[in-house]
């Protein structure tokens, strides 16, 4: 049984100019520990789909099942990382941000700080545990956000273009770091991006979505050995194939 299943998921927005389908009859399964990227241009419904999996949006039709159970709201089985750096709580240190979920779970202070420090070490920020977010760079803030989403040990990590607002060099570094984190934690990851090279670098599998209405156009397996070399011929061929699927 797949870890995450989407069954005929549709989302229709009611707008003043009528009903706009954002996601139309999408079905797929994601295996445990699989890294799935959803790629598509803006307006293809990829973020809506992620928000449905996260439980922030309720689909108009169909359902998402995680471990066989239908999703009805957000839950501690999923960690979420957003694109905006402002997702961190500015009034909490990096450590304080990472302990938040554990605090909500009722884990004692000493234990949650120990666990949080381990997560910060995973994203190579153990030296910045006591720093406030506004003293950290964008890339560091996103690393704290990843540590925060992993700290309470969810089985699923949902990421909505987490590196899209970073400069190209930092983004490359973050992608390598995320690949390492995933290799160590073996979470099931759903990662939304509009960046094809990013998808080829990170994913086991890529769903290509097209807009108006949002539909899955292709389901592509990336069979490249890791760590992947973005300059290899095979890598570029995969990239080309995805771009071909994306072309209108």
């Amino acid at each position, binding site marked *: 049984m797949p870890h995450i299943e989407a069954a005929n998921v549709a989302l229709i927005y009611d707008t003043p100019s009528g009903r706009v389908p954002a996601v139309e009859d999408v079905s797929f399964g994601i295996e445990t520990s699989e890294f799935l990227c959803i790629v598509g241009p803006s307006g293809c419904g990829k973020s809506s789909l992620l928000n449905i999996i*996260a*439980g*922030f949006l309720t689909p108009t039709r169909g359902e998402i099942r995680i471990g066989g159970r239908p999703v009805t709201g*957000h*839950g*501690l089985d*999923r*960690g*979420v990382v*957003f694109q*905006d750096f*402002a*997702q961190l*709580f*500015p*009034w909490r240190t990096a450590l304080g941000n990472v302990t*938040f*979920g554990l*605090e*909500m*779970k009722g884990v004692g202070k000493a234990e949650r700080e120990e666990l949080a420090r381990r997560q910060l070490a995973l994203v190579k920020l153990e030296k910045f545990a006591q720093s*406030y*977010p*506004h*003293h950290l760079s964008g890339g560091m803030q996103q690393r704290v956000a990843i540590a*925060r*989403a992993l700290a*309470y040990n969810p089985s699923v990590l949902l990421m909505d273009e987490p590196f899209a607002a970073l400069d190209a060099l930092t983004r490359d570094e973050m992608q390598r770091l995320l690949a390492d984190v995933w290799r160590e934690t073996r979470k099931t990851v759903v990662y939304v991006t509009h960046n094809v090279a990013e998808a080829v670098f990170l994913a086991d599998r890529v769903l290509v979505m097209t807009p108006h209405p949002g539909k899955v156009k292709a389901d592509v397996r990336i069979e490249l050995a890791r760590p992947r070399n973005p300059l290899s011929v095979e890598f570029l061929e995969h990239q080309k194939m995805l771009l071909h699927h994306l072309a209108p």
Partner: protein
Amino acid sequence: MSAALDRAQSAYRGGLALLVAAAVYEALARSGAFPPALLPTLPKVAATLVNQLLDGTILEHAAFTLYRVLFGLALAVAVALPLGILMGRLRPVEHFFLPLASALMPIPSLAWVPVFILWFGLGNTVAILVVFYAALFPMLLNAWSGVRAVNPLWLRAAGAMGAEEHALFWKVIIPGASPFIIAGLRQAFLRAWIAVVGAEMLAASDWGLGWVIFDAKEFLNADVMLASLAMIGLIGFVFERLVFGSIEHATVVRWGMVQTAR
């Protein structure tokens, strides 16, 4: 530029402005254009202030005034902070209280003094109520605005990490709205401090800095009046700069939620 040097420069500029103003006043007082009883020289005012400080009377008056302000302010915060937050979170609460606040807010707090005297008699109750009234609305409106300015992403992230309503309130909404809450506290104190002196002039029986000023008029004691005014200004300055300035620096400035001016 280092922060210490910056502070020294700002203190120097502030001191210079005060010095110039004092010199102009002193020149006017010594010119003989006005009777010395109405326009006492600064050394005379300073001597009166020192005497009153030494015999403790002005401190006692100041303590009474501060007690009224802090009591009324605490009441106002206890009511306005939760109410303002509820207004920002729940539409029906906002719909009920916002028109009420808009209608009551333009009434000067001092206009209530005769009504309060009628209801409660002369004394502390009236002064505290006036302070409460003056401090209530700035706190209420800032708390309300603060809640609406909380980044929805914080709520979403906290929700994803399992935060329920109680945790959201204390651990996300209150700190998230803190720049506004602190601004509200500052404005509320200032309004309260202004209101209390007026209330004391009208309603206090024999204590408080406002009462001292009003009472001194009976004996033409301009030096006592000016010494009390200086005391009022000084206490207000201390609270504004030291108390609220420190709170701000220890919280929202430290967290990068507000920037300090360059």
